[in-house]
């Protein structure tokens, strides 16, 4: 086939899933000529798995993405069906917003948004090659023979690369939701020197709502006062979810048919995620557990399909039907989509730097499942960071580097690029060592400045943030200064919550700091409490209550920064450093960490290696100085 020279681009984004959308929007909004390539324009922003956005850790990512000027939070807010704040009783650091969303409406919202964005063209075409010359990306080639010269390319291929679907004994080449697989790009990437690995994931069945007996299931309503991502705007829950359970009969069916699962017969070679195991894996790994929870979630307002969270499987269809029908409320349910496992190519993310650019190929970025992660939110957050950095590279501006200490996004990127991952990576609150500082409620405080700097946050939005930030600071100051006089109502409030009465009154800040009292309790006692937006009230309360812990973590961040700032000379020869263990030499040479902090997080680098490295760096600097002196003598 003869190739033709197509439009010249600043940035080509490959794939229009959650990562690709954010990358393309960021680049176009930052003023760069951008094209977004997709295998099918009808599935832009598709949710091939859960019809939901957010969750533990994931909610944090969406708040952060929203603060940086990303789109996912706004889209989810617009098509929200149910909103729940998870972990509401487990402390503010781990409050996590999760929304059920209308997946069809979500796609329409995203497609519309992309179409209305200046500088952005949507192209339905399979990208079959990435051209790289002299360690620099030059453009992409489509199956139709178009060569699009581009300064930067962002790969957001999701599960499409060389993908294969498995249902029991049958398997075929296909992407998620039976899309066409991208069969040629992997080869081109390998030729460019990129190391690909094979990962696996899966999704549960969807059944017809009219065939489900919801009356025997537990009802799971949204929060009485539902909230949204990054805004205090009012919200309404539209549809509930339901909960049911597997039972001994379900487990028996699975055990007896296990040999028919490609996961157990050895046909699937890809590595699956531990945090969303298939139902057969759960039953085999946790034989003592008598039942497993199944959530029945709506797929949208305009559809009867419901999603059976907890029943991801690669068993044959007949077994799936048997086992689902053994579950209370699902006895007569009608299958619409069969559960399947999917295997796909992705890159080993340790080849990327903190901007998500390949260290050896300038201008080539990766984001989302292509980088070995899992989840819409993880993908979107990376797409945004990769897009911003591609745009900054085109503009010749310094990159946006988010650290572990200031964001979950930075934590995730550091985890995958420094530690690497041998399974699809999911964010979790336990992955952050600074989680009391990285809360949903202060995401804007932490990150909106970056969004403003790169041009993704409007002046109005930034001004609105500054006003709220001022309100928060003034309210905290006020509470620290003012005293609540003694009164019968104060004593009653205190005794109701198990505290001793306060005959001389109590400082207002001290009142709020008490574990079992809230800011609203205080306002109930004040004659003229201020009227503040809910998000500001929340920040005031959290910052007062957790002041001590927040300060302590801030100290740790400072210690962390010292190791992060200790730079490793870029030309340092780790093989020449005596005392480093062989594994450490190899890992350090391969990953080339920029700082001692990063080196210390690479698996296979021991604390003893780090101390050797510190000595070697000091020695290196010393030698340099000496050489410098010698030159001066010449």
């Amino acid at each position, binding site marked *: 086939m003869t190739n033709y020279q197509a439009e010249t681009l600043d940035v080509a984004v490959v794939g229009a899933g959650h990562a690709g959308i954010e990358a393309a929007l960021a680049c176009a909004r930052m003023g760069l000529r951008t094209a977004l390539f997709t295998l099918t324009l009808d599935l832009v922003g598709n949710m091939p798995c859960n019809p939901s956005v957010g969750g533990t*850790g994931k909610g944090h990512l969406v708040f952060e993405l929203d603060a940086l000027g990303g789109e996912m939070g706004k889209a989810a807010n617009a098509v929200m069906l149910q909103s729940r704040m998870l972990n509401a009783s*487990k*402390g503010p650091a781990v409050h996590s917003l999760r929304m059920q969303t209308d997946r069809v409406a979500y796609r329409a919202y995203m497609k519309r948004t992309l179409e209305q964005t200046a500088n952005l063209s949507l192209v339905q075409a399979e990208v079959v090659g990435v051209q790289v010359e002299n360690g620099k990306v030059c453009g992409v080639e489509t199956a139709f023979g178009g060569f699009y010269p581009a300064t930067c390319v962002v790969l957001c291929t999701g599960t499409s690369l060389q993908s294969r679907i498995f249902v029991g004994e049958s398997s075929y080449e296909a992407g998620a939701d039976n899309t066409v697989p991208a069969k040629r790009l992997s080869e081109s990437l390998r030729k460019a020197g990129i190391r690909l690995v094979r990962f696996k994931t899966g999704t549960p069945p969807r059944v017809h709502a009219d065939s489900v007996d919801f009356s025997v299931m537990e009802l799971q309503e949204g929060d009485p006062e539902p909230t949204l991502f990054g805004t205090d705007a009012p919200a309404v829950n539209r549809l509930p979810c339901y909960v049911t359970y597997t039972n001994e009969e379900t487990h028996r069916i699975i055990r007896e048919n296990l040999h028919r699962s490609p996961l157990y017969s050895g046909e699937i070679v890809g590595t699956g995620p531990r945090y969303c195991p298939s139902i057969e894996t759960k039953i085999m790994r946790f034989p003592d557990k008598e039942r*497993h929870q199944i*959530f029945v979630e709506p797929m949208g307002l305009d559809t009867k399909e419901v999603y059976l969270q907890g029943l991801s499987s690669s068993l044959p269809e007949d077994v799936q039907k048997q086992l689902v029908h053994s579950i209370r409320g699902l006895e007569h349910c009608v299958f619409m989509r069969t559960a399947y496992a999917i295997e796909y190519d992705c890159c080993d993310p340790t080849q990327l730097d903190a901007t998500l650019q390949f260290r050896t190929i300038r201008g080539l970025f990766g984001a989302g499942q292509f980088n070995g992660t899992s989840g819409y939110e993880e993908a979107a957050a990376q797409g945004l960071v990769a897009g911003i950095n591609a745009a900054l590279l085109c503009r010749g501006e310094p990159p946006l580097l988010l650290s572990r200490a200031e964001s979950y996004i930075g934590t995730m990127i550091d985890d995958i690029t420094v530690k690497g991952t041998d399974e699809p990576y999911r964010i979790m609150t*336990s992955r952050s060592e600074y989680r009391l500082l990285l809360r949903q409620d202060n995401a804007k405080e932490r990150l909106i400045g970056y969004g403003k700097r790169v041009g993704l946050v409007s002046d109005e939005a930034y001004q609105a943030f500054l006003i709220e930030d001022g309100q928060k600071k003034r309210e905290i100051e006020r509470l620290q200064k003012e005293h609540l006089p003694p009164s019968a109502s104060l004593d009653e409030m205190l005794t109701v919550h198990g505290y001793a009465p306060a005959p001389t009154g109590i400082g207002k800040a001290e009142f709020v700091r008490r574990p079992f009292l809230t800011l609203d309790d205080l306002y109930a006692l004040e004659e003229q409490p201020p009227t503040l937006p809910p998000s500001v009230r929340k920040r005031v309360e959290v910052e007062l209550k957790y002041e001590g*812990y927040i300060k302590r973590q801030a100290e740790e961040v400072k210690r962390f920064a010292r190791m992060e700032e200790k730079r490793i000379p870029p030309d340092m020869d780790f093989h020449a450093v*005596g005392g480093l263990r062989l594994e450490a030499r190899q890992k350090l040479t391969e990953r080339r960490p920029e700082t001692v902090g990063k080196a210390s997080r690479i*698996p296979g680098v021991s604390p003893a290696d780090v101390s050797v490295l510190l000595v070697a760096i000091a020695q290196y600097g010393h030698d340099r100085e000496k050489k410098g002196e010698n030159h001066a003598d010449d």
Partner: protein
Amino acid sequence: MNPFHTVAAISTPYGKGGVALVRVTGEDAIAIAQRVAERQNSLPLSETPSAKAVRVTFRDGDQPFDDGLLTLFRAPHSYTGEDTAELCCHGGLFVTQKLLGAVFAAGATPAGPGEFTRRAFRNGKLSLSQAEAIGGLIDAKNDRCLTVSLLQSKGALSEKLSSVAERLRFLISSVYAFIDYPDEDMTDVSVPKLRQTLQTLLGEVQSLCDSYAYGRAISEGVRTVLVGKPNTGKSALLNRLAGEDRAIVTEIPGTTRDVLREQVKLGDLLLNLSDTAGLRESDDPVERLGVGRSLSALREAEAVLAVFDGSSPPDGQDAEVLRQIRESGKEKQTIFLLNKADLCPANGAYGPFLPVPGLPVSAKTGVGMDRLEQAVREVLGVSPVGEEALGEVVLGARQYAALMNAKRHLSDALGALDGFSQDVAGLDMEQALSSLEEIDGRTATEEIVNEIFSRFCVGK
């Protein structure tokens, strides 16, 4: 300085002995050994197998001066993890010094204190607590301490700490599984259960902390001060404990004008004894200076031996001594000794005078000295440790500090579970874990994530 340069030191005790060992370690160890030692069968030294002693002749330049044995340990299979040569020559100051001199002339530099062990730690051959235990072995001042060090170098304390850390990690993963998977029904995670396990762990960390009183008493020694009015026999008592004439004992009150320090053994405890000038007002400027020092020694003491002349009734000076002890806040740490029990075995006059009954002793005859050990243990709160638990005695100050940190964070975690919330409790537990793991120089987060997946059935 290149951290891998070759160093050498005499590794056997200084002085006369049958044989002596010079150890050379570092990147040039084998080359240096080759310059000073020649195999008696004329084979090249570089072909000597590892960990096998061969006969050699030691030379200084061209001049042979001794025959001996040489053993090569090639990296990483050596104590330090680096190339190491052990040169064994005939003992005696002269030959040994000459060999060491030859090794230095061939390119090695003197090893710093503890350098071999430090290198072993740096090269990943020893965990930090093992390294410290080896330090303890070398410095071991008595048999008990040696046993503890030996057990620790085999990893007994490491094992104990690992067991605590492992259970703590298990607990943390429960908390995070609970937090990260709020929709899963995790029947095996409950706050009362968490609290109970935390209490148990806290108890174990507490008893490790408590063992440090004993550990320190047998390794570093207890700061002990002898006080009393002049001429009650403090110096004689010191001599009795030390077993030699250390202090000048005269009949003239105030003979001891300065603080004399001596490390003495009392059972398996080590006492770092300061014999002070008598605590009394004096016009003699030299003696006054001594008295000032005595007071500051008293304030820093962990145990005080207050000596009285049991052969005569207490007087105003004795009362002054008591007052000073009280003022320094050391009354509870004080053992009241009624010396000269050989002259007067029981002096009733001290009964109402002293806050607790005095202990009759005689520095001259040794009467009552056996009861002193028990009294010191009581004052220090050190109970004898059984053989089986000896490996779990904390000897080092750093280990102790890390354990105290862990203890504090564990108590915080308990408090957080009660009043605050699980996110904070989890954080406190993580800090406790990293304090514990600091002892062994490891870090934990990824392990917790792994633990969550291996133990809990979570996911979609």
